[in-house]
């Protein structure tokens, strides 16, 4: 079962903002090749950080208000949210190495 949870504007408060652990939000689109190519790395990272960092996906075409609220201008855009605030942001296809270097400082409640 995938650890990448799909979220919506209605569930964003519960899934992301009120989360007790940091949440990496993947703003993506169905037509975006680099978004699809990033999924295996995200799945691996979600397994690696299970219980420490949550992973959610937002389809920008389905949830334009969320994309606008976070200033998403291209996909994929990844925003790490901790205690309701964006703390990291990066764009483009991601590798496991990139995910590790960005997320590990926030894993295990270390920041």
């Amino acid at each position: 079962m995938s650890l990448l949870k799909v979220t919506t504007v209605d569930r964003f408060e519960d899934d992301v903002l009120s989360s007790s652990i940091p949440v990496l939000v993947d703003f993506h689109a169905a037509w975006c090749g680099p978004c699809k190519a990033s999924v295996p790395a995200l799945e691996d990272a979600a397994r690696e950080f299970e219980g420490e960092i949550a992973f959610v996906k937002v389809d920008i075409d389905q949830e334009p208000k969320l994309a606008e609220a976070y200033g998403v201008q291209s996909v994929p855009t990844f925003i790490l949210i901790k205690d309701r605030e964006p703390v990291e942001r990066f764009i483009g296809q991601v590798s496991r190495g990139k995910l590790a270097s960005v997320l590990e400082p926030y894993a295990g409640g270390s920041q």
Partner: protein
Amino acid sequence: MTAYRAFGNEATKQALRADIRAKGPVYTAWLTQASMEGDLTSISQDYGLHPALARLLPALGAFGQGDEALAFYDALLEAIPVGAETGNIARRAVLLAWTDPIYGRAQRVEAGPVREACEAVIALVRQSMATSVDRQTWRAARARLAQAQREGSAPDKVIDLVLSLAWDLEQAPGAVQDAMVAWTAQLSAEADAADEDPFTDAEAAFFKSTMDRITEEIIATRSNESDGDDFNYEAFLEEANRRWAVDPVAQPLKLRSLARQTRIKARLAQWRSVVQKKVVDDATTLVV
């Protein structure tokens, strides 16, 4: 260690080789650009190849951009004995990204904490060939390298590559693809920087502005026409090439750019050929 055993039987092995030689459905799903987005679980299940090797091979063959890799695939599959465990072929192949005397990244990182952290990762990759390395050990190695990079300096792309090596390939086999993509990007950038006919800054700026202008013109033209749905990428390229060709100032730059891309591709092909040969040679040493 996983229980993937190559092919299962000789007939399956030969059927796979035949499919690849004919660029059949398995080849198309596995060894082309489609694999970037695709799930390769079935390759491992159907053919007993370790998931890390299944992820490595498309990248090592340039994702089917040309037919040059077909001979490599055939030679490699021929060399792998039925029943062999193939995970360590993938591990030894990605280690070349650090250790190869010509193309390896070890020579790009100066002595100091960053290099020591990189070498700690490489030591874990070697260790993982013989015994399982636990998740916390991999994570500690990645954290050490990331911390060393924050406090020191080394090319970011090299660090990204080494961080991509620092994963348990039993749990995250796709990390080998990350490593290969990062290695390719670095070698491509080096070939570009060392090219015999580089653009000046002014030429590069003019080339980019021309490319942006042509793209915007085509988009604007197409958005005013009713058959936009029929306008695919190939049609876009054709139209872009036509516009470059009629611009007497931009066209010479375009031709120089194309020539440079050809030279860079040739250098990358040379590198791939070296790595492919080492992987095939490695496979010939497998015993069951």
